[in-house]
């Protein structure tokens, strides 16, 4: 399974393509491609978004979904989704704590 991820041009924030063709700031909102057809649609979206100037460095990444939770297979992408592991008070992980 795959999701599409990028960084927002204006501030570099890590984002994921969500249903409705919008970029979400949290991985849990991402549109998960469960089969090849859906992956192809994400590829098309990637190419379309690359023409605009809202996000950069657009990539399809591997995820698994377990218990309703989307988890990237690579540690790198998990860190992108959370924030630096040595500063739990920074990044998206900190915002989750505040929101909770």
């Amino acid at each position: 399974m795959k999701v599409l991820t990028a960084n927002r041009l204006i501030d570099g924030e890590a984002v994921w393509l969500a249903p409705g063709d919008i970029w979400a700031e949290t991985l849990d909102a991402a549109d998960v491609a469960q089969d090849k057809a859906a992956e192809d649609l994400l590829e098309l979206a990637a190419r379309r978004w690359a023409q605009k100037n809202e996000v950069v460095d657009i990539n399809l990444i591997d995820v698994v979904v377990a218990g309703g939770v989307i988890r990237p297979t690579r540690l790198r992408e998990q860190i992108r989704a959370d924030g630096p592991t040595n500063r739990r008070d920074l990044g998206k992980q900190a915002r989750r704590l505040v929101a909770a």
Partner: protein
Amino acid sequence: MYRYDEFDHAFVTARVAEFSDQVQRRLAGEITEDQFKPLRLMNGVYLQLHAYMLRVAIPYGTLSSAQMRMLAHIARTYDKGYGHFTTSQNIQYNWPALADIPAVLADLASVEMHAIQTSGNCIRNVTADHFAGAAADEVADPRPYGEILRQWSSVHPEFSYLPRKFKIAVTGAERDRAAIQVHDIGLHLKKNEKGELGFAVYVGGGQGRTPMIAKKIRDFLPEADLLSYTTAIVRVYNLHGRRDNKFKARIKILVHETGTEELTGWIEEEFAAVKESELKLPESDIRAIAHYFAPPELPPRAEGWAEIAAQRKADSGFDAWLRRNTVAHHHPDYACVTISLKGIGEVPGDASDAQMDAVADIAERYAFDEIRVSHEQNLVLPHVAKADLKAVHDALVAAGLATANAGLITDIIACPGLDYCALANARSIPVAQEISQRFGAQARQEEIGELKIKISGCINACGHHHVGHIGILGVEKKGTELYQITLGGSGDEQTSIGEIIGRGFGPGEITDAIEVVVDTYLAHRAGREETFLDAYRRLGPAPFKEALYGSDAKAA
């Protein structure tokens, strides 16, 4: 230190305006990312895992309190309250928004700073001995030459699109504190028998995926020929360096593939052609630049000697700090102070905005307003009267900056690693923190003695692991982090590349493995005076392999 003249001010101001315009046009979609990327890199703007990263240049690691206060202001206003001092004597901010960077650059310009050429395939920040102009063992201050090279290399019309980045380091003592032999060009400032100033010139050093020690190609280059000779080297590199493979594009590969003798021949031929051109440095020009680096007036402060003895007795923390974090100054009443940015269990090289402000205050009050950044990710106050060391120490304690571990096992160099960096394969900071915690006890650290651990989160070696006494390289294996240990590296005048000791260790094992290495050293050293590095060079890898892997030693 160097002060901008009207030309410098105008240049930096124009550059800020130019980049602001480029950012606006990028945000408006008038230029594409492919067009913009090389432009933003030339202004020190990277895109990392969580955000952009801005790398600000600190030429030859020297700055004033006003400049340090501005760095604190930027951390506070545009970032998340901290900055990271790097192995190239620069500072990095991890969270600036692209839209804010023009404002950051304007703020920097107001204190004569910039982020020009801290990235990209150009000549980067020229680094120098962090004790320059102060250390007792120095022959001459290398920084004027760092400044000359900086001016020459800034927006150089011929050398702005090199095959790859280019790094130059300068040192002015026999003890090499600038790691010149692992730079593209290393310059060792010295005097000949007539007392004239010049350089031993080294070419083709570097780390990364193919670490190489530089080759000395000139024993003594007169100072007047500095720019013509450097031009010759970079011109030959620019013409012949590989552009087909990013990983084979540094000058070290050109030296290796061409052969030192042949390449030196090309360089000397080019040098002969430009030797008497406008690149020749008139004595008056050199002295004019050197004038900016004249040491401050250092009044005699002989009262320090007696005061210190009593202060040491009264405060064991101060005593330890004095022992570890001060170095002999050429003036007997003064000392060079290392401000450790390696608090036990803290992030190596990071400083909060409050800490930066504290250092600025201390420098202004006690250290003639001069601060240095070392390539080992610490700060330095090069000129502090011995009589003021206690006051400086106490002020540092209040700011959480008085860890007495300079050169000890917890004085670790670590790159940002996978916690921040888009290039990384493994995390480096948590490894550094864990090792620091394990060995944090002062007495234990001092018992172990000088031991430089350097950690990189990928093969690019920004943590300089190849020249660590103990080097740790983080790699990704089967989706998890794995740490390879190298032993016996060194970045000083007897530069050596560390040797891989065996198969790697997982995140849960690496600190234990380091402890085994340290215990093996302690068990085998000839005595307390034999450092880890000396012991390793005497013993070789065998006892360490045995201790780590037993008879089960497998290849890495």
